């Protein structure tokens, strides 16, 4: 036993040391973003956690208090992207259930939200429904249910859950979900208006940063670089540690031609959150900059992160497929995307499956899924570009021209790699008509 512990200690120390070396070595420059050094004067979320902890020290039998602590941990995990809070949230919720099983919808909501965070959307849906059997008007449970159904691709059910949430507890959480629901139906102006409404209700700086980042993403999605830049800047002013906002800023910088600035942002944010998606984006940008060796290193790290995730029992077919595509393994991408499609029918999954099939040369099949991706109303540039190239491969030139025109018309900056490719393809088709 003691020997095992010693080994564990060595392993951990080694891991820390090597990771430090690797991180430093991978950084193109040794920039230290000023945003990270700004201290937060008041952190309402930390205050909430501290208050719940203090309360439970005094009244450890308060079952509802344990649920509240679990919910606060989950919010912390979300804003910091630190999954280390997940086990703590789960322990708190299970402690609550151990103290009080009957009528304890709060704990079920925490477990459901946790399942969503871990991408186990079916389990999240079931937990939310269990919570709703306890309280048929539990707004938080409807939030968990809406999140789960959205990701599972049950658009109608998700919309219904969001409406119940709006009818029960209108406010930031409900408005943000309603905004996403509208976005997935292609109602971008309405989605933007509701996210602004959510922003008006934001009290916690983290919440304000979230709303600003979403507004930035919505602005970026329609090619409004200036608007997007302003929102991301405001998000980072509210929460200097927001990774999503920094990633948004990086995309704007890349679109504006500030490649060093964009790379610097990606270097920093992937050092803080070495998740597969961001690492793949980083690699993509490094390739654009002609730094292919460094790009490969990012992909290696992405592979490691992905293996780590799956080794821990995680399931994320989208990341697996994206990684396979980025490393030239289209057959693996198809396998992963199809497995994810068997689990859930979110339009992002349809789009990824279509693009994987296209990469594998199976365009006839791909077309079905590419059209499925846009069937709900959402039609961002990436979907249009993928559909257009699939149609081009199938010889449907008019349709391809229309989709590529749409992709570039919606957001000419949608991808530093695919954007120029779309322009070349469109030119080859004789330009947009």
């Amino acid at each position, binding site marked *: 036993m003691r020997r095992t512990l010693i*080994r564990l200690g060595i*392993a*951990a120390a080694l*891991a820390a040391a090597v*990771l430090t*070396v690797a991180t430093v070595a*991978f950084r193109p420059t040794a920039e230290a973003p000023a945003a990270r050094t700004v201290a937060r004067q*008041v952190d*309402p*979320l930390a*205050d*909430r956690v501290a208050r*719940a902890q*203090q*309360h439970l020290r*005094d*009244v*450890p039998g308060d079952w*509802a*208090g344990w649920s509240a602590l679990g*919910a606060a941990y989950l919010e912390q995990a*979300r804003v910091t992207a630190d999954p280390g809070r997940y086990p*703590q949230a*789960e*322990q708190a919720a299970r402690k609550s259930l*151990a103290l009080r099983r009957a*009528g304890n919808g709060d704990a079920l909501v925490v477990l459901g939200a946790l399942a969503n965070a*871990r991408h186990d959307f079916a389990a999240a849906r079931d937990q939310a429904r269990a919570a709703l059997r306890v*309280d048929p*008007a539990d*707004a*938080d449970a409807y939030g968990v249910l809406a*999140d789960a159904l959205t990701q599972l691709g049950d658009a109608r059910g998700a919309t219904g859950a*969001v*409406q119940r949430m*709006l009818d029960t*507890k*209108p*406010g*930031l*959480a*409900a408005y*943000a979900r309603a905004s996403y*629901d509208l976005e997935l139906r292609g109602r971008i102006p*309405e*989605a933007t*208006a509701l996210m602004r*409404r959510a922003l008006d209700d934001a009290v916690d700086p983290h*919440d304000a940063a979230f709303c600003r980042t979403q507004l930035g993403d919505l602005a970026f999605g329609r090619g409004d670089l200036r608007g997007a830049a302003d929102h991301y800047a405001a998000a980072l002013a509210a929460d200097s540690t927001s990774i999503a906002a920094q990633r948004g800023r990086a995309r704007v910088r890349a679109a504006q031609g500030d490649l060093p600035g964009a790379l610097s942002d990606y270097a920093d944010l992937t050092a803080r959150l070495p998740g*597969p998606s961001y690492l793949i984006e980083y690699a993509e940008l490094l390739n654009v900059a002609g730094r292919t*060796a460094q790009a490969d290193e990012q992909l290696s*790290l992405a592979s*490691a992160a992905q*293996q*780590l995730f799956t080794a*821990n*029992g*995680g399931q994320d077919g*989208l*990341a697996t497929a994206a990684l396979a595509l980025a490393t030239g393994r289209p057959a693996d991408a198809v396998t992963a995307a199809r497995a994810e499609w068997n689990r859930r029918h979110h339009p992002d999954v349809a789009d990824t499956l279509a693009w994987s099939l296209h990469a594998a040369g199976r365009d006839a099949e791909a077309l079905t899924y590419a059209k499925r991706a846009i069937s709900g109303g959402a039609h961002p540039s990436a979907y249009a570009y993928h559909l257009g190239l699939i149609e081009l491969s199938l010889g449907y030139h008019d349709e391809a021209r229309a989709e590529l025109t749409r992709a570039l018309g919606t957001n000419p900056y949608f991808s530093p790699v695919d954007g120029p490719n779309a322009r070349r393809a469109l030119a080859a088709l004789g330009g947009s008509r």
Partner: protein
Amino acid sequence: MTVKQAAWLAVGVLLAGSVYALGPGAATASSHREAPLVAADPAVDNTDLYAFVSPERPDYLTLIANWQPFEEPNGGPNFYPFATDATYTIKVDNDGDAKPDATFRWKFQNQDKRGNNTFLYNNGPVTSLDDENLLFKQTYTLESSFDGRPFKTRATGVPVAPSRIGPASMPDYNTLRAQATRTLPGGWKIFAGQADDPFFLDLRVFDLLYGGDLSETGQDTLAGYNVNTIAIQVPFKDVALKGDAKRNPVVGVWTTTERDRVRVADGSSYGGKVQVSRLGNPLVNEVVVPAGLKDTFNATPPERDAKIPALVKRVTNPEVPQLLQQIYQIPAPATPRNDLVEIFLTGITTKAGGPIKADLNSQLNNADVAAGRFTPSEQLRVNLSVPVTAQPNRLGVLGGDLQGFPNGRRLTDDVVDIELQALAGAAQTGKLVDALAAGDQVDANNQQFLGKFPYVALPNTTAVNSQGGGPVAQPQAAAPSTDSTTGIGAAPAGAGIPDTDQSEAAAAPGAGIPDAAEPVAAASTEGGTWMTKPVAYATGATGFGALILAAGLFAFMRRRRRPAPPQPIFDPEQTTRM
């Protein structure tokens, strides 16, 4: 070591880490859209409601509603605005049908001159509400509706007393308070702005229900924190049924916060409001309501209360007396608790068939109420004909002081001790339980209330969490001013006339701190013929309120527990030792 080697080594270690260092689920998935689930939304969070006959204007009813608990003074550039997308209301039912007969409605607007250059709320000392140094401020519109008629604007552009940023920024807060206290045509007085949280208790007393003891009480959990207050004072005739407070002296009140109803189909507001918060009796809406009905109850108008069987059952079979019996061998009263139903849902009256043989504060006792239309509902009910008590007893009706809770609620009423006594059996025996005589040992607020409208103390200025973990009473140079009710007759929807008289005035009787040691209740027997058995109130009414309130305190504690200084020693592993 080459970069490549480092990369692969890192990969290997990462994988090793998955076995050794990290538990299942510790790795992050790629991001999907994760929105806040339980977002902080304190601006719409009702905390307390008070309703009492005005001590210095005995023909006027004062209504005070508070929002946004735990406003930390001086924790940085903190400012606690009212929500501009919410509607704040206080509603009055004078005929007992559980529907509002008078509704007062507030909406707030921002005036933000900060631009993009600063996040600070002021740019130098603020000596008046018009001071150019005050970069962010709010104003409000007050509307009212009576007997279902359309809303009429009573005041617009009225300034909110700003969050008290600190003595350097706001050297004379009295002036700001006075300028935000307005008199309107018709004798109405209004105020909105920051104030000391007038609620006082030591929440730790309720640890006893988890097997703790009372040895650590005596600290006002809420001392030092501020709240956002809305206060209004109106003549009896404006709220009493048929404008006749002599024939119809009882009114029931509750406060709500509402937001627009939004349709997800197109993102529009499509008419109507969603009630997001509701409050009548103290703590009740968190407690009487079963956990599984909390959102339903907050969204429910009182007229539907009696149609929720689970809610009624919670009143007839409360949980807290069972806990007290288990822990302290204090026998729980037999169920069903029809006395609680009577008191909680109808007001104390002999006309509803309930067991309490007294008539105190039910609309059924109004001469012009049609009993057939009476609908039980949860409201804070006050009998306007009970005269102002010269020396209020903090134990209210239980102490023989019929002007106190649960006949309305004064700022000084010690609702926690009242309820503790009743829970422990005072309602059954008619005698105080010695073991609980001290209650939570917090008998009064940490700050003295003012002798005139809006009564609540000025906001605290010392950061609570900088006080070594323990709240410290802060003497405040409160400077209540005398009335300046002259000048009524200005434009009907102006911003009212500010209090300009800054002269000192002693705290009026009835609004000061009661003597915590009073052994005998101040008698008040001249309340009218309908009040025949004060003792009955003590043994019944407070028992009811206490039970309900104590039950709710679990929920209440979570919301309003005094935040402790950061405690890095918390060990999450303890959560697994069950």
